[in-house]
């Protein structure tokens, strides 16, 4: 998502404390509260109404890693961040400009991210002795002056909620609508339309009219609290963005991956078979696909990751568009079977939603540490194509592309995503199904050898693919397997020259895909000294940092890789045409290693492994450092 015009994407002008309306190009808001406080709901509604209003946006939830920690404790805090803008963005923002903290624990775990002078909205009634103790505060931060550097808004949300819903619900569920109070207040503060929220609430809780009534009463109470008590406060305004015209929907990376697979199955005219074993953060792909049996999707929750890939190799042999998905620990287990698919030359997409490793690591945190593992994580000479998604809105297209390559070249393809893409969401311009590419390939239907013999390893002249002959096709009965096969006939062969030939053929088949993918595109100031090169989920942040600097007059070019193997055919030339190359990645320098090995071109790195995405500022600072070096 490149913006035609360059804007300042980081920082936001200070909201004036007693002005009228503060116009902003973009703003980042975070909702933080206990897991039971409904922060995901509030955040998502805020996103929806902003989308309907016409902003571009990007959201990112942060769930607690713990199971379901006791209410009010630090590990129980859940949050949801959203950036809204009047132009085309691709990140959930650096530091929030505005934050909601529903209790002391939420404040404690999130405050360090709020930018200086930012707006802080708290439920003042949650800062009682018990709440403070659970969060480990000795004194109330609302009293001790420690929040002086922020624009603090205290709202007695419990009271407001109770009053608003008094005649609608009773007992313990009274306070459940507190998140709607917060949401209402934010809707006022940012001048968001209530209509989309109301419609959603009515349909979501259609079967529970009391809940609808309570929530909407709370919503309005929050909105009115803004109008009545904060009249002197400046309110914020982020104008609609001028996105390319079209129909949009809000999509997370995991949903996009599931939809991308369904779309690929449509484009390939093949039934989709998805085999998986649940694992964070890939499980939601399985969940989403399992819902779409009407679209003919078969999902198989296997006993483990090996069984999952085994099943999809079987489905591929049988003629399905076969896909398995997992994350690091599970992908490790698939290594041996990927190698089988590779030598059996069967099409397969292997989705890896990367998370922080090694071993179990930090399952809910993103990292880009599986690049070298994707390239080299199999015994023997076993090259295969690797693609990486960049943002939620890019996932559908990248997924279709992965499937296209798998089918056309009869090979397993690794498709990388990560925790950040998987759970982040942004508007996605919905294509017409009819406009999607045709990626179908024909099955073999007749013998291809002398005397009516079928030769399963007689390769296509252009693609070097072997024919895909599926069981049920009369006359094409044949056997394949993991032992080395004789070229053309596919019979077992221990012949030395044949093994060399087959190894070379498999390598060449994959390398040749470089001629079937677009060259890497360079953006920004093409005649710069420095090229910033990225891959995967750092795209949004990297692009924003570079565009800002371009606007400020710095000469920087930047490019982003969707194809990690083979690399685009022009990449070597591009890299060598810049004096300096900087590669920001959430690992210790894996793409840098690949670039050095492939092109003997040195590169600067910006590497971090903290389980958090890049901030625009981090990339900006490093670029400036490299420029000066």
């Amino acid at each position, binding site marked *: 998502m490149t913006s035609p015009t360059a804007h300042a994407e980081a920082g936001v002008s200070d909201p004036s404390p007693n002005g009228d309306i503060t116009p902003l190009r973009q703003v980042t808001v975070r909702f933080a509260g206990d897991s039971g406080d409904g922060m995901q709901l509030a955040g998502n509604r805020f996103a929806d109404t902003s989308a309907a209003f016409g902003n571009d946006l990007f959201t990112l939830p942060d769930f607690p890693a713990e199971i379901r920690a006791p209410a009010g404790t630090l590990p129980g805090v859940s949050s949801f961040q959203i950036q809204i803008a009047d132009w085309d963005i691709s990140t959930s923002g650096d530091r929030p400009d505005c934050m909601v903290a529903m209790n002391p624990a939420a404040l404690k775990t999130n405050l360090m991210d709020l930018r200086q002078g930012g707006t802080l909205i708290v439920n003042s009634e949650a800062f009682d002795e018990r709440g403070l103790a659970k969060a480990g505060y000795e004194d109330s931060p609302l009293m001790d002056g420690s929040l002086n550097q922020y624009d603090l808004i205290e709202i007695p949300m419990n009271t407001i909620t109770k009053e608003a819903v008094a005649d609608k619900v009773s007992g313990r569920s009274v306070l459940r609508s507190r998140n709607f109070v917060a949401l209402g207040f934010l809707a006022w503060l940012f001048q968001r339309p209530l209509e989309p929220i109301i419609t959603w609430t009515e349909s979501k809780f259609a079967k529970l009219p009391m809940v609808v009534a309570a929530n909407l009463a709370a919503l309005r109470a929050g909105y009115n609290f803004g109008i009545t008590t904060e009249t002197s406060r400046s309110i914020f305004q982020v104008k609609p963005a001028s996105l390319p015209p079209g129909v949009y929907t809000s999509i997370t990376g995991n949903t996009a991956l599931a939809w991308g697979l369904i779309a690929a199955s449509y484009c390939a005219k093949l039934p989709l078979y998805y085999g998986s074993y649940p694992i964070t953060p890939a499980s939601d792909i399985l969940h989403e696909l399992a819902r779409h049996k*009407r679209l003919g999707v078969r999902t198989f929750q296997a006993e483990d990751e090996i069984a999952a890939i085994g099943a999809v190799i079987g489905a591929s042999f049988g003629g399905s568009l076969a896909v398995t998905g997992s994350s690091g620990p599970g992908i490790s287990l698939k290594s041996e079977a990927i190698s089988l698919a590779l030598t059996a030359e069967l099409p397969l997409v292997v989705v890896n939603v990367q998370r922080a490793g090694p071993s179990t690591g930090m399952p809910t945190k993103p990292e880009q540490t599986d690049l070298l593992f994707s390239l080299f994580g199999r015994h023997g000479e076993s090259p295969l194509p690797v693609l990486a998604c960049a943002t939620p809105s890019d996932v559908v297209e990248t997924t279709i592309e992965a499937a296209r390559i798998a089918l056309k070249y009869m090979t397993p393809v690794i498709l990388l995503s990560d925790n950040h893409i998987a759970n982040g969401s942004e508007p996605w311009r919905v294509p017409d199904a009819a406009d999607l590419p045709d990626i179908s390939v024909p099955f073999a239907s007749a013998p291809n050898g002398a005397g009516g013999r079928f030769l399963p390893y007689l390769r296509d002249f252009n693609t070097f693919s072997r024919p895909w002959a599926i069981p049920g096709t009369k*006359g094409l009965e044949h056997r394949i397997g993991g032992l080395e096969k004789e070229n053309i006939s596919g019979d077992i062969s221990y012949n030395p020259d044949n093994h060399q030939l087959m190894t070379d053929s498999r390598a060449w088949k994959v390398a040749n895909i470089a001629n079937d993918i677009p060259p890497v595109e360079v953006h920004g100031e093409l005649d710069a000294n420095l090229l910033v090169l990225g891959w995967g989920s750092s795209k949004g942040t990297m692009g924003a940092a570079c565009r800002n600097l371009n606007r400020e007059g710095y000469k920087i070019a930047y490019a982003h890789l969707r194809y990690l193997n083979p690399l685009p055919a022009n990449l070597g030339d591009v890299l060598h045409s810049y004096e300096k190359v900087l590669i920001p990645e959430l690992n210790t320098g894996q793409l840098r290693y690949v670039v050095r090995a492939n092109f003997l071109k040195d590169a600067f790195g910006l590497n971090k492994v903290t389980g958090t995405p890049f901030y625009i500022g981090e990339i900006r600072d490093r670029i400036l450092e490299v420029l000066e070096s």
Partner: protein
Amino acid sequence: MSNLTYTRSDFQSDQEVRWCPGCGDYTVLASVQSFMTQMGVPRENIVVVSGIGCAARFPYYMNTYGFHTIHGRAPTIATGLATSRPDLSVWVVTGDGDALSIGGNHLIHALRRNVNIKILLFNNQIYGLTKGQYSPTSEVGKRTKSTPFGSIDFPFNPVSLAIGSEASFVARTLDMDRNHTQYVLGEAVNHTGSAFIEIYQNCNVFNDKAFIALTGRAERAVNRINLQEGKPVVFGGSGESCVVMEDGEARIKPTSSVDPDQILVHDPSRENPSVAFSISRLSHTPHGPTPLGVFRNISRPTYGSEMQQQIVDAQNRGPADLDALFGSAGTWEVT
């Protein structure tokens, strides 16, 4: 399909069969090929999937579709194939190491799911291909290359394990007995769902005569307990021994010592697997009287047909298309 006329050679591929001379695998291959000429399924609809091991070479010799996969994983590949292509007849050929050592988990899961695959477990109580280590079915104390002082682990009873894994069809046969093998294959094919068939197979190179109690001229008459549906379980050259349920377990008695009404009448179709399990305990590693035949054969929905049914049901609830999917989470328009 019943007018298919095949001869055995239709099921022989052009590959030279390369087991050790005298290996029991040859006989099983012949039995399966002969059986398939009668099975009524077109050759192109048959797929044989195997793991790794001597037995796992099987698909290369079958002129059907075949897939020689990786060690222990054949049930998973067969599961994906059978559930995505319910029109196919999917067979798994595996060994005691392949199925019960590295592949044990996939086996028990395929069985509990009742995937429509027919599993032929060639049990030679040894690792053949890797040249003779003990396997999970080798008897305690077995001296092999990896256990020069004798093995110390108690072996599985594959039939007990399969029954404990909720298998809907469980049988056992012998490489040498072609008729019995073909009878069991017939029952397996008539059964809808997963079928588990343990085949005692002689590895004359690394574990010769492991099944001599059932194949030896002198011994076999006394030791083969032939399970036949609806028939009292009597055995021995002249029916001198029989099986009764006593004190909650199957026991062998001299036929002359029991009231004929007491003799167990074999009923593999019992929903409750207790008796089938108990029968499986009559032998462990087969050195004495050992039951052969179909232990259990009950009907239960198959995984593949249920998967298919959910799709059909969903589609019956109304049409769906990609555009509808893309719009399903709510959309807005930018003009």
